[in-house]
């Protein structure tokens, strides 16, 4: 608009100069002068045009430079700084979970387990350098232990089908274990998680073939006991191998009812030489109470393999997830060696009452919470059944049957309120029956002395 006005002004200016200057020679009847003035006008016209074009080109250059400038964005996926060519990026995200647990009719010896807790407080820094190298760094300041690093890895993307990751990250075995913490339907993962590895340090090759129709991962890790997180160093010289393949055959099809179907199998194999760190540090209930522990002096010694068939199905508001895990491990106490095989399985379902799509990666409310405009977010109803069976050969030599349970069966129901993609309020109730145990002044005896009934709440911020 401004440019047009300037152009108009220039034209009027030229016309004015022409008018004044042309009028004089007319009176003088001087043809040469008229010709000279015409040329002068043409030259001035060209000069004006050149100036305008130069300004136009300068603007084009400025626009092109603006396109090359780094971009800063802030939204529901966190803060992001990205180079213009997107080859370099850094994103700052975070997860904060403030929980409460209330146990009903529990043993007074477990006093102190009711209360508020900072379950997770994790700043997340992720990014990309030189287009193909991704990194993730996640420390955790929540929980009962000292702050620690949960994820720290470098990933090279040769192509989506072929990627390499090295560092500390989740071992590719348990399906629910691989689900992001902020998307879990319950405050705590199921009993199956007691039998699969958590985070470990290692290297893996992985990828998504045909846009995720087939996903695979194959890695070598230091190896951790069931349900354990690794520290930042290895505890022995032996290594574990883990592999997972997961199929979503209809992921890219137009068959709506089947698009959310996925199934696969995962497993691990490794050895441990006489080391207690290779064992589970104790199986935990939904309320995160220890209901099983190996007797002091028991160590992992020999082969350890796990296998976990797993599947999920999401269609519209409905979601179903199930997995089975078997952990087969050679253990030793003194001179006695035995192979123990523990198993667990779970099925969890969900229904999004407000009509949004259920998914493995959380809910995106159609109408984020805004009461002034009558929008209330999304409500998600969830239910789960899980059970864990401890090998009978474990008792009495490797675990005390008077204190530790030989098995646990748990059911849970819950209601989650997704105010928006970033904020969620959660409530759930979980009931667990234990087989065996029940005596002793400390856990697991105090835990297994009665069924566990626990009411959870959570306020979650994730961005």
């Amino acid at each position: 608009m401004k440019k047009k006005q300037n152009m108009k002004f220039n034209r009027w200016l030229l016309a004015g100069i022409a008018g004044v200057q042309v009028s004089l020679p007319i009176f003088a009847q001087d043809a040469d002068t008229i010709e000279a003035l015409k040329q002068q006008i043409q030259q001035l016209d060209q000069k004006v045009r050149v100036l305008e074009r130069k300004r136009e080109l300068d603007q084009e250059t400025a626009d092109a430079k603006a396109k090359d400038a780094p971009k800063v964005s802030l939204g529901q996926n966190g803060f992001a700084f990205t180079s213009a060519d997107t080859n370099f990026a850094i994103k700052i995200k975070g997860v904060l979970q403030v929980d409460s647990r209330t146990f009903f009719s529990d043993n007074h010896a477990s006093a102190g387990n009711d209360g508020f807790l900072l379950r997770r407080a994790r700043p997340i820094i992720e990014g990309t350098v030189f287009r193909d190298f991704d990194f993730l760094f996640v420390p955790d300041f929540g929980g009962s232990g000292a702050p620690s690093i949960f994820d720290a890895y470098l990933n090279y993307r040769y192509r989506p089908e072929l990627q390499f990751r090295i560092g500390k990250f989740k071992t590719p075995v348990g399906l629910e274990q691989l689900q992001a913490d902020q998307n879990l339907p319950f405050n705590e993962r199921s009993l199956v998680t007691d039998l699969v590895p958590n985070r470990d340090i290692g290297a893996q090759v992985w990828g998504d073939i045909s846009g995720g129709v087939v996903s695979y991962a194959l890695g070598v890790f230091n190896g951790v006991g069931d349900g354990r997180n690794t520290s930042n160093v290895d505890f022995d010289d032996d290594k574990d191998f883990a592999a997972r393949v997961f199929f979503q055959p209809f992921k890219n099809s137009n068959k709506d009812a089947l698009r959310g179907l996925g199934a696969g199998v995962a497993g691990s194999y490794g050895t441990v030489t006489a080391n207690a760190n290779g064992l589970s540090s104790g199986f935990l209930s939904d309320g995160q109470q220890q209901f099983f522990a190996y007797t002091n002096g028991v160590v992992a010694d020999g082969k350890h393999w796990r296998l976990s068939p797993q599947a999920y199905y999401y269609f519209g508001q409905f979601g179903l997830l199930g997995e089975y895990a078997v952990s087969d491990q050679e253990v030793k106490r003194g001179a006695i060696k035995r192979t123990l095989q523990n198993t667990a399985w779970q099925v969890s379902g969900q229904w999004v009452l407000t009509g949004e799509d259920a998914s493995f990666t959380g809910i995106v409310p159609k109408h984020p919470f805004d009461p002034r405009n009558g929008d209330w977010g999304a409500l998600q109803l969830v239910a789960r059944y899980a059970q864990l069976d401890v090998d009978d050969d474990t008792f009495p030599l490797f675990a005390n049957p008077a204190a530790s349970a030989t098995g646990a069966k748990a059911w849970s129901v819950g209601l989650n309120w997704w105010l928006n993609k970033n904020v969620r309020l959660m409530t759930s109730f979980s009931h667990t029956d234990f087989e065996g145990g029940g005596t002793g002044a400390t856990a697991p005896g105090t835990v297994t002395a009665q069924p566990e009934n626990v009411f959870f709440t959570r306020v979650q911020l994730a961005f």
Partner: protein
Amino acid sequence: MKTKTLISSVAGVAVLVTAAVIALQPAQAKDIKLLNVSYDPTRELYTEYNTAFAKYWKEKTKDTVTIQQSHGGSGKQARSVIDGLPADVVTLALAYDIDVIADKARLIPADWQKKLSNNSSPYTSTIVFLVRKGNPKGIKDWDDLIKPGVSVVTPNPKTSGGARWNYLAAWAYALSKNNNDEAKAKDFVAKLIKNVPVWDSGARGATTTFVQREIGDVLLAWENEAYLAVKEFGKDKFEIVTPSLSILAEPPVAVVEKAAKKHGTEEVAKAYLEYLYSDEGQDIAGKNFYRPRAEKAAAKYASQFSPVKLITIDEVFGGWRKAQKTHFDDGGVFDQIFKP
């Protein structure tokens, strides 16, 4: 026993699932996207050619190929590819710009010119003058461009491949007229540069400057660009002047092999460039005022071009690498004579 049964069951399920996945993945026709990073005046050529190629490829393979085009000054486009523009093929104004991609980004093999016939140049062109109707300044040859008061429009050789051809054609003319005296050629081109009022970054921008912004007396233009301007804006507005001597421009093409491999488009990218040499590809080139290589198409379109003596970059300048280093690299002859 329990374990063996479980393993057998799981293995069975895995085999069944794998078989189901394979069975349920019919050999579907693919949707393929291809990015052709080209220089400025090829928009019309490739718009027409892309439609023809997509049709040919669909008939041959059942796959749907969508070709996206990116245009700009040739040198600028080469830099964009080096900086990460995900081109599957490049169709640039001069070989040096593809050499740079091969040298600096290693996205293209060093022997790329041997991959297709005619040094990977499926069509040629040259440099002509576009003047206003009636040729008010009486421009007939290169000498007229250095006269005082003649305003010459040409893009910037630092960013435009066409501009480098313009510059070298003028230099070659001056050499030929002055017994290969380099100093006189330098002086000639310096005078010509003095007459340039605006420096566009690409050939299409220079055409806009001359045709639409009505700046200048003469546009140094690709032959195809000049004919296109006359066709589009009318013979009553512009005329083409063919100088006594010009340069044989051989715009080259190449598959950006590393990128194409990454995108899974190697086969179609190669076929896309090969099809430029087909009867249909050559005909489309001729229709868009490029000089076809194939005899049949060349004969068909010969009458639309005026005869001109053409020198080559190799015989006068010792090839593109040498010409680039001498004239256009930082501190080269162009920098010495260009005084903005």
